[in-house]
């Protein structure tokens, strides 16, 4: 009940406008962050803008009285996903997008933009046209620790009605972890094999060049010896 808490903190402040201002602030931050993600040329800036987007969405979840999901949003997305992205971007180094002239499908990009804009306009139009019900009242007294959006209520839902979804999700996470390891190992293995191949090839080349040089040297020495037996003056020089 963000509104009630704020009203408690500021008794003179009317609850409604302040919550609207908060929504405007975080919605603007979310949209600006998302736009920056898709317009920044540096992937690093994109990832950090996504962090802004995630955090402001977490604040919006808090406005919707869902503290547990808001904490999960900050922990999982801002804490884990963005950090993973930043690690990979730092690992792969600076790879900005190529110059615009190099874009092979450049003619299709305005069409893609128009398609995405039309899709968004359609979604917003549907939202405007639809008649959503007013928010249910959740301010009535509930048993301690059982309020809407509390960890306890979500835990009951997960281990009760949605226990199958819970188990399947854990299986999906396990498969994803194994898949990540396998992908990392195959990429690494190929990398190592290529490097070893290059090393052995260069070693072979070095050996061959060495043997070739050795043969040339022995042939020259033999020729010199042969020349030395015939004419002693040449051998002494």
């Amino acid at each position, binding site marked *: 009940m963000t509104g009630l808490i704020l009203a408690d903190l500021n008794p003179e402040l009317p609850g409604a406008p302040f919550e609207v201002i908060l929504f405007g602030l975080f919605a603007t931050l979310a949209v600006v962050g*998302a736009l920056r993600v898709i317009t920044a040329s540096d992937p690093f800036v994109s990832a950090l803008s996504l962090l802004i987007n995630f955090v402001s969405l977490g604040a919006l979840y808090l406005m919707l009285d869902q503290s547990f999901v808001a904490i999960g*949003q900050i922990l999982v997305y801002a804490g884990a996903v963005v950090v993973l992205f930043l690690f990979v971007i730092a690992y*792969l180094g600076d790879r900005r997008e190529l110059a615009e002239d190099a874009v092979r499908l450049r003619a299709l990009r305005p069409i893609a933009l128009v398609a995405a804009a039309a899709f*968004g306009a359609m979604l917003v139009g549907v939202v405007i046209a639809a008649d959503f019900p007013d928010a249910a009242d959740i301010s009535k007294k509930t048993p301690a620790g059982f309020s*809407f959006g509390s960890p306890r209520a979500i835990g009951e839902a997960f281990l009760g009605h949605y226990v199958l979804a819970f188990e399947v999700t854990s299986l999906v996470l396990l498969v994803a972890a194994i898949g990540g390891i396998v992908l990392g190992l195959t990429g690494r293995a190929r990398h190592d094999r290529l490097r070893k191949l290059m090393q052995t090839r260069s070693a072979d080349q070095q050996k061959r060049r060495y043997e070739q040089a050795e043969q040339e040297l022995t042939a020259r020495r033999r020729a010199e010896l042969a020349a030395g037996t015939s004419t002693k003056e040449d051998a002494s020089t």
Partner: protein
Amino acid sequence: MTVPVDWFVGLSAILFAIGAAGVLVRRNALVVLLSIEIMLNAGNLALIAFSRTHASQDGQVLAITVMAIAASEVVVGLGIVVALSHLRRELDTDELSELRG
């Protein structure tokens, strides 16, 4: 809740469209993955808003499940990107077309 649910769902629609534009327009594989994250979060916002409207936990359960799936997707997607970067230098989605037909 003084802010009507329409606003949250409208914001979710706008964010989803931005993410879709990013997936369609950008060519860096990493940025495409980031845009997919925006779309997943837009869907989550709608789920959460409707969950609050109906005062039921179902939407929250779905949103948390979506978070888990998104984490799995990031692990596998970034694994593919790193493996690709070992095989070849560029991460251009226009060039990465081995799986096409």
